[in-house]
């Protein structure tokens, strides 16, 4: 669907919307919660992303409400948006799995080297 990966804030916005339609402030708090407070979106960044995602057909408006005299617009993930998020999640998951496997081998290799060095030292002492 796309040639390159999506950026983290976009990924987190789509992840927030995967749970169901949310309004702007709800997305901001949900993104902070999903990322363990590591990513805190501001309004300018959020609405730049929402505008782009709406133009690309990834996100759409679900409904509008007036709460305390203020407009509250709920956004939802579209079917292509869900597809995009699924593909990106699979890609990240595959990368994470590859990294974990290699780190495990790396750790095993390092432990083996330590053991071999220890054995060599013991032989030398004998």
């Amino acid at each position: 669907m796309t040639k390159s990966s999506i950026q983290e804030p976009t990924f987190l916005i789509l992840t927030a919307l995967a749970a169901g339609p949310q309004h702007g402030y709800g997305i901001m708090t949900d993104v902070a919660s999903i990322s363990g407070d590591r990513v805190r979106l501001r309004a300018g960044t959020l609405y730049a992303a929402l505008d782009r995602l709406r133009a690309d057909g990834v996100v759409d408006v679900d409904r509008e409400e007036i709460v305390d005299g203020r407009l509250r617009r709920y956004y939802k993930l579209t079917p292509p948006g869900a597809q995009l998020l699924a593909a990106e999640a699979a890609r990240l998951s595959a990368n994470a799995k590859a990294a974990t496997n290699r780190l495990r081998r790396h750790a095993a290799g390092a432990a083996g080297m330590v053991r071999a060095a220890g054995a060599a030292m013991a032989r030398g002492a004998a």
Partner: protein
Amino acid sequence: MNGEGALERRFRRLLAWYPAEHRRTYAEEMIGVLLASAPSGRKRPSPAEALDLIGGGLQARLRRLGTWFADPSWPDALAVGSVALPVIVLTSLAVNYLQGVVTWYGLAGLSDFYLPALAIALPPLLALRYRPAAAIAALVAAGWFTFPLVKYSGLSGYFDPLEAGYCAALLVEAIALAVSPGPRRALVIMGWRTWLVLCTAGAALGFASLCYHWALPTWLAALLVIAFLSAVATWLAATLPRQVPSRLLLVLAIPAGPAAVWTVGYLTGTYAAFLSYTLPYLAPDLLLACLVAAMAWKVRRREATKLPDKLAG
């Protein structure tokens, strides 16, 4: 005024960085979110919030500019440009030639008439059958006009606006023929009224060289030229399908710059003296040429890949 009212007013002022269309869609919603996320009692946006809104506004403006440049009507605008430029230049040259016949001042010579006419007329005719070869021919002709410009002007700041105009027209012609469907498409888009506007503009350009004895003040000459260009642009825009005119006018503005300088020089009767000031007037032309070349590159790239990478980021 209470704290929230002051804060809202300041947020609204920051939202002015966004394009009007974006504000119409999101401003009320953004104000709600901004106020909901601000700590109570705050009267001013934090520097981080202000920077985020300014950055978001500039990003939205750039995105709209990018959309304007990526519009699918660009090839049509360039196709019309590939015909419009030769029509204007050839009509102007024809008026000059007729002026020589009627006034018996002497007929225009090889370098004044036949070579420019041939250089500008040949590429679009060639493009009816061999478009890539026509683009190369226009590029070669542009180089041919550039050579004396560079050779005789050097770094002195002296540029003949007429030759600079030919140069710009041929360069734009080369770009237009390289990335657009070319004259065949233009003939479908252009109606008789478009032809009439283009011929009128060309005739007026040719007629200006008769008016050197008017010796108008520079400001009046400049005003006349600007008023005429605005009238032509408005009239031309009314004869073409929506989306095409703004892009076509940007393309035509590149050779229109030197042509306007040349015309002002004639209307003031100080053509020779005016030339020494020409170079600074050509700077916006270079900028426009860069913009059109960037757009042409984008059109070419989109056509080549046919897979817009829209969803990234």
